[in-house]
């Protein structure tokens, strides 16, 4: 098992993982910044989380330390909970204002 992991890294260097994580993260950030649909923003946030997860897994393997992977499970659990709460809020908002466009959701200002 261990050998397999190491051999993978000899083929695919860690830099690749870092690079793809960074790209995924940036896509997520840009999605959060430039999209107006709350659900897509939500998904972009998930994308960012998962890019971090990917990086955690990669480093975990690289350092031969399982705690990174434990942490990933933890993040996934939290993300799941977050999605559950977040989506239900969105659904409620949608029921009330018939929109999930964040430019229209300004009524908390006052």
């Amino acid at each position, binding site marked *: 098992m261990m050998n397999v992991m190491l051999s993978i890294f000899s083929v695919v260097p860690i830099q690749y993982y870092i690079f793809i994580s960074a790209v995924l993260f940036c896509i997520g950030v840009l999605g959060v910044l430039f999209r107006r649909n709350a659900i897509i*923003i939500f998904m972009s946030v998930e994308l960012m989380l998962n890019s971090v997860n990917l990086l955690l897994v990669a480093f975990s393997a690289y350092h031969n330390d399982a705690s990174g992977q434990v942490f990933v499970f933890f993040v996934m659990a939290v993300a799941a909970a977050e999605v559950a709460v977040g989506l239900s809020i969105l659904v409620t908002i949608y029921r009330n204002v018939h929109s999930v466009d964040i430019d229209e959701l300004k009524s908390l200002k006052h």
Partner: protein
Amino acid sequence: MNYLLVIILLPLFGFLINAFIGKKLPKTISGIIGSGTILVSFVLSSVFFLGFLNGTQQKIDVDVYDWIAFGDFKITFGLLLDQLSVMWLMVITGVGFLIHVYSMGYMHEDEKFHNFFSYLNLFIFFMLLLVLGNNFLVTFIGWEGVGLCSYLLIGFWFKNQDYNNAAKKAFVMNRIGDLGFLIGMFLLLYNFHSLHFGTIQTALGTIQVSHATIVAITMLLFVGAMGKSAQLPLYTWLPDAMAGPTPVSALIHAATMVTAGIYMIARAHFLYLLAPETMQFIAVIGAATALFAATIGVFQNDIKKVLAYSTVSQLGLMFMALGIGAFTSGVFHVVTHAFFKACLFLGSGSVIHALHGEQDIRKMGGLRKWMPITFITFLLSSLAISGIFPFAGFFSKDEILAAAYEHNKVLWAVASFASFLTAFYMFRLVFLTFTGDFRGTEEQKHHLHESPSVITFPLIVLALLAVVGGFMGLPEVFHAKHFLKEFLNPVFAQATQAGGEMGAHETNSSIEIMLMSIASILAVVAIAIAYVMYVSRKRIPAKDGEQYGIGKIIYNKYYVDEIYNALVVKPILVLSELAHDVLDRTFVDGIVNWSGKFSLMAGAQVRKIQNGSIGFYLLFMVVSIVAIFAFVFLKN
């Protein structure tokens, strides 16, 4: 000592009874309690006095208890009885008793009769404390206490706001003096670590105190005396104080309280002897006051106002005596003045009583016919105050004039002129009031009557004293014993030793006889002029508003009140409003409110960031995170 406490506490007791249950007592009882307590005090005082007279009584100087005491600081509540205080004791209780008796008649109609007696008793209590205190602070209790009673009694008829204003003015003016007194005491306490008269007197020999300090102390104490004894420039309250009932004017504003300043300076003479500058100042102020007030007295038409200015003038004379070192003469004049001025005031009260409150001498005249006793006593006292031989005023005034002549001819001339004016305006008063035809209404004429005996009795006693009072200080030219001088010698020994300059009686007899003759001639001339003007020619002073020239200015008291109003009272009132409206509410509070408003404003600005746009928030968040990363990254 116990009897001494009784003397002091009896009037307080009378005060408490009249204050608490006086309302329920019949007026007579209330009056008897008021007068009785003073009578007992008088009798006890006489015992002390006689004791001093035949040498059996020693000086009493006891501390009753520690009043303000902590750590090293100690001011006791103590009493002092010596020849000087016993003189005052006799005057206060003696004249005080007579005036109490008089008041029983004079105030009989007043519904606040018991209040009146309680205030009078309280006054006597504080006055006794003033003269019996063995340190400056106990004297100061009495000093302020009599000021309070003066306030209460001037404003006795408190429904009239003019009277209340007069009362307030008296209190405030006295307070100005009191501040001087207070600071003077601080200097004493600081330099001598004591306020006890005896301690300070002995400490003067051992403690090195700079001359300037002594001058400052004496000057400040004199400021206190200026207020209390109505000297220039703090005299304006005394004429206004005539708003009070007449017995009050007699007791407080003629015989006793206003002489407190003289008492205090006589008591502290050992300090004053070390400060010739202050003495000089006192003499000048005294002489100036004597002349200034006498000129005003000439033009006044209110019977009590004339007497009030006369009091101010006579007090000036006494201060002049103190200022030239003739302490005994000053005290002598205090005593004789108490007799004749009290008599004059009570006599004027008798007149006012008969005329149902009329005080304007232009509306009197010819009262001799209806009020013979009042007339005779008034006349005798007027002769005494004018300095006609052999009445009391002659001797005391002569002593002062002789001392002044010895000291400084200008002072003597001023004082002589003041005495001349005194004789003139007093007889102007006598003639306008008691001779000629009655100028009042028919209604008043119908009710004219001599006052009851409860009023005339004190008049007679006081008039007798005004006649014979002078014999306690016969001048040396008469080869008689100067009783008062010997009596007070233990107190003023230092002053007498201080040199021939101070002891005026070293004057050779021919000069003294000459001075006496000049004074007598001046007085007689003044009376003659008054006679010609007001009896032979039957002149009557001009109506208000018809005066002109210098007469108008003097009639209006040189506009001093108006000047004080414009220079002091008005500016303070304006300042008060300005300080509140502009400085306090607008400026100081403005800054406070502004700091509050600034927070609100800043909040309003910051709030604009919270525009509610989620996209903006997100952008802000991302930019911030990037910025933080960049910062941390670049820092390393």
